[in-house]
């Protein structure tokens, strides 16, 4: 039986709980690109420690618990470094220009019926889908 959707749903609930904790306790929107980008730009210094604590949890907890809960987990990232670098540049610049990514616009925006969150999500999914079609099925490079 295929149980991957159950893990997807369970993991999703954890993600949503994390976002709910950040909102209800600290009054902040849990957006990965906003938190990391805020550190990069050194904007709103009063939020720096809180952002670092969040990033420590995001990086540190999978590091600590992966051997116990998902020892087989891998990223399967393409070995083509040109693609990796191009993709990283686009993700970094795009999420900051749009002021949000899958967590901020997607999870936190859609759940409050934000028009901007919904529109952003439609556009990054369409662009992502077309990119996979073009680069995988037409050009055959990913």
């Amino acid at each position: 039986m295929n149980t991957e959707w159950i893990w997807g749903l369970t993991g999703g609930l954890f993600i949503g709980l994390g976002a709910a904790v950040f909102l209800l306790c600290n009054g902040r929107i849990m957006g990965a690109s906003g938190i990391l980008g805020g550190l990069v730009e050194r904007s709103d210094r009063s939020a720096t420690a809180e952002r670092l604590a969040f990033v420590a949890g995001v990086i540190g907890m999978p590091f600590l618990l992966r051997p116990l809960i998902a020892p087989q987990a891998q990223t399967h990232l393409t070995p083509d470094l040109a693609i990796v670098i191009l993709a990283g540049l686009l993700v970094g610049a795009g999420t900051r220009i749009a002021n949000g990514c899958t967590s901020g616009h997607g999870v936190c925006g859609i759940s409050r019926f934000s028009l901007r969150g919904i529109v952003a999500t439609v556009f990054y999914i369409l662009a992502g889908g077309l990119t996979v079609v073009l680069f995988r099925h037409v050009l055959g490079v990913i």
Partner: protein
Amino acid sequence: MRLVYAFLAGSLFGIGLLISGMTDTTKVQGWLDVFGNWDPTLAFVMGGAILPMLVAWQLTRNRTPLVGGRFPAPPRVELDRRLIVGSVLFGVGWGLAGLCPGPAMASLSFGGAGGIVFIVAMIVGMFAAPKLGAQLDRMASAA
């Protein structure tokens, strides 16, 4: 306590990304690839994540955050060039590698050199974003 809650939120987010499979780029690209062997997992992850947040946004009404201060202002409604162009650029990068900012961080400890290269490139892109955004505004006013 603010730091403890932030660490707890980040920990839940990181664990959720790991067990949902979203740190696996093949699952993300598999979801985007509607003409290939389509993988529905990401839709379950998104749905599962939105559920607690639907409740959380309701709980913000007439209340203040636990540590004090205010909840975020209601979302802006106007759509602008930055939102659309930025989201398209992000989507292209997301499709190319199968990583977005959260999973890039969550997989840093086991993603090897490629994962580190991705996050460094992403941070460089974040540095460049304010200038690119300003350029976009100039193109808008010139058009």
